[in-house]
């Protein structure tokens, strides 16, 4: 019946109403799109592009190709286990030219990252390239170092000479590729990133839990006291929120150190018999991070509670529920959207922290962002930094999806 109604042709001025409505609709949509265009481009510029660039950096490896172009091209043509004369000749030529430009070290840097023994072979070879014409460059290379004649070396070289690489991503999960291409986990004492990724999630989880336990009652208080008091309380919550992160972190360092304010007061009153270690360990990290992130938990919960008002509890009491029951069955479920938003915000913000744990934490509290920073600034290994960022992004998306699966994103509300 309904379908039939829709089919009815209503024509005004030769154009069907349906078309007219579609046109009007399209105009409205275009207007709406124009209005959001600035935001869209801003997002593209500051969000999508950098992330895309980071993902790209994690797999892009042009150094060897750019540094030794003829060699890379010759190697692409040659599919033998140990390539033939033209490849060796191109390599000798490219290495000599790169040395002339003093760029040979740069070209072979990715080899050092992936196989230091092979890199030593390259370096010795560059320094000793034959000055005179030799009949067979291949023979010269192999007689100079037998590694040049081994198929395993060439498997590694081919992998590094490819324009894209999975090396960084594999290294970011503490694994390596053997020459035959199979994945293996590194020796226990060389594994670093898996452990740090684990720590990152562990710290983020507990910071979220503590912030929730501390934030929920405060949000309730804020939402239910008189306007005058709630304004004052709100300022107290927001004041640290407006203070620079570094200032807050240093303030905690003053308070928590062995001869700091907290320890001096506590030992002064005889509550502690001796100073308690509260810094350079997990306690310091939790205290400082929870303090900084608490407003992100508190504000969404507060805003949901404010909209709810005191009436649900009153209504439940009116119907005979005791306060506990009223809270658990009536109030709490209605505040869950705010709790969800707060938890998600705090957890995801925590994942990216590094200055605070680096300053108040100990060596066991290293988070993944610190390793990204080390790779960017100290090692100049942006490929590795990109790969670690990719791993963190994937893990964050996974958390998001799990959250959505079990709690439902549609329940998240910021107000």
């Amino acid at each position: 019946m309904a379908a039939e109604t829709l089919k009815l042709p209503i024509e005004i001025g030769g154009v069907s109403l349906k078309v007219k409505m579609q046109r009007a609709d399209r105009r409205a949509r275009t207007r709406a799109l124009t209005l959001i265009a600035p935001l869209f481009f801003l997002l593209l510029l500051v969000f999508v592009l950098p992330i895309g660039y980071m993902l790209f950096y994690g797999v892009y490896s042009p150094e060897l190709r750019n540094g030794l172009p003829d060699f890379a091209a010759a190697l692409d043509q040659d599919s033998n286990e140990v390539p033939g004369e033209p490849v060796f000749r191109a390599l000798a030529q490219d290495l000599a030219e790169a040395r002339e430009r003093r760029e040979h070290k740069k070209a072979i840097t990715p080899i050092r990252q992936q196989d230091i023994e092979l890199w030593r072979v390259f370096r010795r070879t560059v320094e000793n390239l034959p000055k005179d014409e030799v009949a067979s460059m291949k023979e010269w290379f192999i007689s100079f170092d037998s590694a040049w004649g081994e198929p395993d070396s060439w498997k590694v070289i081919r992998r590094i000479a490819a324009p894209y690489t999975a090396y960084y991503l594999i290294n970011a999960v503490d694994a390596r590729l053997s020459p035959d291409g199979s994945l293996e986990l590194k020796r226990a004492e060389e594994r670093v990133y898996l452990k740090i990724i684990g720590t990152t999630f562990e710290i983020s989880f507990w910071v979220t839990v503590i912030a929730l336990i501390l934030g929920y009652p405060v949000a309730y208080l804020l939402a239910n006291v008189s306007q005058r008091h709630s304004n004052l309380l709100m300022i107290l919550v927001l004041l640290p929120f407006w203070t620079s992160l570094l200032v807050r972190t240093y303030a905690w360092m003053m308070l928590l150190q062995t001869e700091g304010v907290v320890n001096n007061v506590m030992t002064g009153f005889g509550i502690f018999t001796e100073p308690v270690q509260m810094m350079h360990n997990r306690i310091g990290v939790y205290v400082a991070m929870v303090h900084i992130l608490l407003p992100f938990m508190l504000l969404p919960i507060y805003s949901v509670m404010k909209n709810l008002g005191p009436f649900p509890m009153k209504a439940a009491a009116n119907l005979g529920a005791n306060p506990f029951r009223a809270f658990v069955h009536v109030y709490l479920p209605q505040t869950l959207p705010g709790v969800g938003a707060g938890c998600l915000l705090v957890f995801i913000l925590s994942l990216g922290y590094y200055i605070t744990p680096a300053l108040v934490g100990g060596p066991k509290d290293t988070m993944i962002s610190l390793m990204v920073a080390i790779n960017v600034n100290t090692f100049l290994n942006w490929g590795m930094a990109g790969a670690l960022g990719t791993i963190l992004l994937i893990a964050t998306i996974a958390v998001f999806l799990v959250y959505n699966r079990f709690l439902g994103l549609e329940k998240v509300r910021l107000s």
Partner: protein
Amino acid sequence: MKHLLKTTSIAFAGIFAAGLMAAPTAGAQEVLTFVSFGGGYQDAQREAIIKPFTEETGVIVNEASYGGELGKIKAMVTAGNVEWDIVDVEGGDAGVLCEAGLVEIIPDEFWEEVGGKDAFHPAAVQECAAGAIFWSTVFAYDANRIPPEKAAKTWADFWDVEKFPGARSLRRSPRSNLEFALMADGVPLDRIYDLLRTPEGVDRAFRKLDEIKPHVKKWWEAGAQPPQLLADGEVAYATAYNGRIYDANVKEGQNFKIVWQGHNYTLDLYVIPKGSPNKELALKWIAFSLRPDRQAAMTDHISYGPVTTAAIPLINPKVLPHLPNAPENFKQALLVDEEFWVENRELLTERFEAWLAQ
């Protein structure tokens, strides 16, 4: 009204004329951007080199500070927007930047002009960098808390927490720590890097670090931390940059004692990011900084040693004993093998971080 107009036009003419007269100098006004690590070190560079350079040449030197983040240099050079002309970098970083092609090569003519390569400590003459100062990683303690006669005097003592109790602090980096561990394990100075170039040597160093690890309260990251940790009584012994300890004694009246036995010394160097529009001027500045009188003037402000050999006799005899390359301190010293660290820093840093996290 007419009067007012006249006055203003005369005033304008005056300004214009003054502008014209100043113009030749203003037009030729050259500007350099100098970047260093801030704090007392950059203050010393300002007093000893930057101000006299501007006085002598008229070149304005703008300053900035950074924390040794090579990534910033890479970003600038990659983007083709080089804003820094001279950057002070830590020893091994000069090699890393040079290898990556991110800094200008220092031409041989430059070295000829400044008196030949032999006029400097060999480590100060590099393909892409010229030495700035010598500094050292030492260990120190607060003599107000530990009487010097009862304090640790060697790296073996530093490791011996039974005889020399108290928390320790070391730098959060494998650099120098692996060297110190092997020294504490009784390896002679001239064998340290040979040993570290073998996997067994690295394993041995990490095994020795295992012993001290439970007693290390803080793995410091910034040079300002160790004097603070000592001042706060957080730790009894800390490794530190010698200049920071000296500074705390002179400027804050601390009573810290430096143990020079087995100190690990290296340089800071000046580099010119590749594509700097002021390369020639930057070289001129660096040449100025290498002059013996300027090198000696640095030591009036901070206790880092000169790289120019001829500067040593010019140094205030009161300051000399506090420099890493004072004859007395040089005897028990190990020069950081920067080539070793350029080759191995990624692998060893990752392993070090993994070891810390265990």
